[in-house]
């Protein structure tokens, strides 16, 4: 349960949530094979990395706005 009150100005943290949208919806940025990592094309490892980034950002916003 969240009993704590919102800190003033803490809603700015929610802007961080735009990062996954920008990072995944601008497709030309990542539609390439290079730089490959361990034989995995950029297209694939970048999006898998974005899963972790997205989870990290929701976690940060969760703690910052608790």
């Amino acid at each position, binding site marked *: 349960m969240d009993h704590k009150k919102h800190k003033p100005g803490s809603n700015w943290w929610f802007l961080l949530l735009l990062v996954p949208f920008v990072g995944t919806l601008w497709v030309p940025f990542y539609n*390439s094979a290079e730089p490959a990592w361990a034989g995995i*094309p950029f297209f694939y490892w970048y*999006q898998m990395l974005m899963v972790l980034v997205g*989870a990290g950002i*929701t976690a940060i916003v969760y703690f910052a706005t608790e």
Partner: protein
Amino acid sequence: MQNVNWIALIVFALLFGFITWLGFAAAHWRRGDLNLLNEWGLGGRRFGTLITWFLIGGDLYTAYTFIAVPALAFGAGAVAFFAVPYTILIYPILLVVFPRLWSVCHKHGYITAADFVIGRFGNRWLALAIAVTGIVATMPYIALQLVGLEVVIGGLGLGGEGWLGEVSLIIAFIILAAFTYSSGLRAPAAIAIVKDILIYITALAACIVIPIEVGGFGKIFAAIPAQKLLLAVPHGQSTGAYSGYATLALGSALALFLYPHSITGILSASGRGAVRRNAALLPAYSFMLGLLTLLGLMAFALDIDKLPEFADGFKAFKSNFAVPALLLHTFPSWFVGVAFAAIGIGALVPAAIMSIAAANLFTRNIYREFFHRDASDKQESQMAKWMSLIVKFGALIFILLLPSQYAIQLQLLGGIWIIQTLPAVLIGAYTRWLNPWAQLVGWAAGIVSGTWMAAAMNFSATFPLQLGGWTFPGYSALYSLLLNLIVAVVLTPLFNQVSKPAQDQTAPADYQP
């Protein structure tokens, strides 16, 4: 047809026996009075962070996903990976909007999205539209779960479309129907724990063993032709595959939490903190979905459909057989049994939650609202139990009698339809500026235009929108939602002139912790 794989079948049957017992035993778990719809249909809103994680994970990442997304990767390549950005983008939405909805629904005892809409906007016809859309969009989704189940039953050697396969499907269906009827949402919640653990084991094992067998990820990707490995670069006056990919991810993400089964999963959480924490914890499933999507590419790299032992399976199930074939090819029989059980149980969990969610909608927003206003709590929950059977039975008949292609096309339409409830539910969580009658007209415009776009493109998800000499191929759900919103915004001042706004049952504080 291939021979029956006895060892795999026995392991599969044992695990199915276990979850059957678990499904019935779940009636006694965190005991509540199952004669109340809140208890039968929402598990008494008693699930903490961890159970909610298993429940929503088991609910959203369905058996059909695990079969169809890798199958798309196998057949079409990179475009299948849109499932990854799609399932990244659902979590910011979950974190921001759904704690508000959880709070207001908890405060007022709302069980469905349509309950919220009638409380917020005081318009029973808008609520009826939301309820009917939810039920109609859910039914083909249940049917698709049975398609996923059919594929693994076929993989066990029981004949996908022959009588043996049909009998197996009917048995699995009776198990599902019986435990859902008796235990309500507690059954899929308990079973989801088993299913999710099995799925994680399967996905990790496959993504470690297969690359080692092939000789590294590099070899797998090297075997994929360039036009499948990446999206086609757009040329000329068209945004091509790029806008198709991005709009599919965004539109699917916006639609997902509007599905009744998603909302049921969220509302069953014990607190808004459990919902918020899961926005950070659930992406673990997205990572696994990404790994499973890679299985489709691995199956392609191994030329799995050229192997003679899988010829019948591919003939019966097309590329949907890619994952079962890859598992059969790679693992010993006992582990194939575990993996297939994971997928099979992965069909039952969402099918149970979907049928419960559709039953809740019918009972609360059609039966009670329009036919039996003073139904007792017991009558209400009894009606929901019967309705859950009817919904599932309809899906079973559909799968047994009609080609599975129809279920796939209807599910595509279901996504287009359900997204039209976004103004009432998601925007409604923030403001009631949009007039409910204007929303209703917008909803109709969205449904008609979206259905037309999908039908005009022969049930492909993307529609080539022409604008100013440019072509923007994009997900028809998103385009029809834009039309819906424009209509609703333009008509709101007009309708406000003629109809007096109804009372809002909710107060701003109800949305806060």
